[in-house]
């Protein structure tokens, strides 16, 4: 079904803000800053935008007012990381359907300066289902992922050191990225020695919390050819949800919805996993990376820990992953910046962390709403 969209749309521009602590900017400011950079990147103007999708920016109307634009297609998505893929996919759908020609997809996050805590009384994880468990001390997405990892370890023998490989690999990548917040290399031993937050997860299994903004400009493959930079084509995408486990960890680590996407996305993109030059894996917590590798079939079910520990995710290996450093080390841009990294890699703009001849890159996110996008240097 998604196949009819194959290769018809492209990312014409990407923009990011500085990352870190930016108390003088709110979500709207950060989104607008990123959008200015994305438009400049594409060689387009605000007046070219006729579609707008915002996420984690409080209100679409106020954002439109601030930008002085009146797009015909407008929507807003919740400020959850799982919505990054959804937003880009909706932009591609709007363009492919003729609803809009140039869609700005914009995200602004001032969580660091606003003091967001992701645990405790304000915890909304599980879409509001979390509060009923506070009497037992249960809170935070990190704890739920810790429980999932504990379960995975019980079933398959996965070890914390395997998570350490992921954390240290992404940090090494971040050390090559001048925009990354955390650039000092770490070892697996450093990971093991970092304090527990929700045991068995250590501090270095957790994503950062920082301020920043991200924007992408999605347009038709045709129109993208006339933009300033080389188009990066949206070769294929997919989405699948799994809501049955509610606020509880799922039995299958979201494998079923990821498999539903994997069943068609490689065929849609006319490629195999082996053709991929890099992976961008949603890394709110290190175990999510393992679940994603299994869900999308990069390794057998249960084998992701030892497989990752073989070093396949490192720059220079078979599937260099999160070459920017990801959420763990570059910036907590909730999937958004990983999509930007995919675009920059395919354009060859990544300097020291550049993957040679990066022509095909897959973004994937494991959560109650799973998404994946395959970007390509060519439309098919």
């Amino acid at each position, binding site marked *: 079904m998604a196949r009819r969209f194959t290769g018809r749309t492209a990312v014409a521009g990407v923009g990011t803000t500085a990352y870190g602590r930016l108390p003088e900017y709110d979500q709207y400011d950060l989104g607008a800053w990123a959008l200015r950079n994305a438009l400049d990147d594409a060689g387009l103007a605000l007046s070219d935008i006729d579609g707008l999708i915002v996420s984690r920016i409080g209100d679409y109307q106020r954002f439109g007012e601030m930008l002085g634009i009146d797009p015909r297609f407008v929507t807003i998505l919740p400020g959850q990381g799982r919505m990054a893929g959804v937003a880009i996919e909706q932009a591609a759908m709007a363009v492919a359907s003729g609803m809009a020609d140039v869609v700005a997809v914009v995200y602004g996050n001032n969580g660091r300066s606003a003091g967001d805590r992701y645990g405790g009384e304000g915890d909304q994880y599980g879409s509001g289902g979390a509060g009923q468990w506070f009497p037992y001390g249960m809170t935070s997405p990190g704890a739920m992922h810790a*429980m999932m990892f504990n379960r995975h370890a019980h079933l398959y023998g996965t070890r914390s050191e395997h998570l350490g490989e992921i954390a240290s690999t992404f940090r090494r990548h971040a050390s090559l990225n001048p925009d990354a917040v955390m650039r000092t290399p770490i070892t697996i031993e450093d990971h093991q020695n970092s304090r527990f937050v929700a045991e068995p*997860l250590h501090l270095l299994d957790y994503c950062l919390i920082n301020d920043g903004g991200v924007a992408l400009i999605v347009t038709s493959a045709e129109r993208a050819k006339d933009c300033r930079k080389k188009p990066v084509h949206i070769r294929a995408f997919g989405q699948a949800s799994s809501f049955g486990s509610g606020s509880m960890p799922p039995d299958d680590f979201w494998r079923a919805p990821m498999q539903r996407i994997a069943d068609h996305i490689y065929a849609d993109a006319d490629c195999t996993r082996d053709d991929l030059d890099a992976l961008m894996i949603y890394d709110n917590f290190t175990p999510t990376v393992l679940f994603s590798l299994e869900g999308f079939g990069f390794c057998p079910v249960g084998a992701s820990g030892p497989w990752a520990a073989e070093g396949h995710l490192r720059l220079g290996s078979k599937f260099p992953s999160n070459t920017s450093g990801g959420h763990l080390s570059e910036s907590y841009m909730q999937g958004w910046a990983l999509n930007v990294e995919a675009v920059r890699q395919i354009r060859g703009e990544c300097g020291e962390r550049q993957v040679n001849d990066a022509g095909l890159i897959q973004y994937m996110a494991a959560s109650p709403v799973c998404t994946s996008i395959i970007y390509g240097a060519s439309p098919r």
Partner: protein
Amino acid sequence: MKTPYSKPLPVIGERDRAYWEGLREGEVRLLACDDCGHVRYESFSTCPGCGGGRSSRFKASGRGTLWSWARFHKAYFPGFAAEMPYVVAVVALEEGPKVYSNLVETDDVPPLGTPLEAVFEDVAPDVTLLKFRPMRPRNGTDA
């Protein structure tokens, strides 16, 4: 002197009042769909098994197994600070649903899969929490 209870208390609404009353009386009362029998913990009006709108509370066994756990080293709730680090368990109830809970009457966290049974802990005049302890061998017919 007993120190006042300072952990978060549940916000008890009309829909789940019967659940909390059950705990008060030493019973785990889950919802079963009148149409398809699907059992749920959440007090939704609609059955996730069949979409039906009629369901009834029934007395569940109070037994389950340890599905997973995490040990909290961060004090998200001031009321838990005194017993840091503390463990939150995921218990898979015999009837299917999972619940978050705490383990009692055990010093160590037992291995995943360990059979557990309900312990009803009164924490406030109208609040009883559902906790679990490792299943004990019983006398009589259950032995």
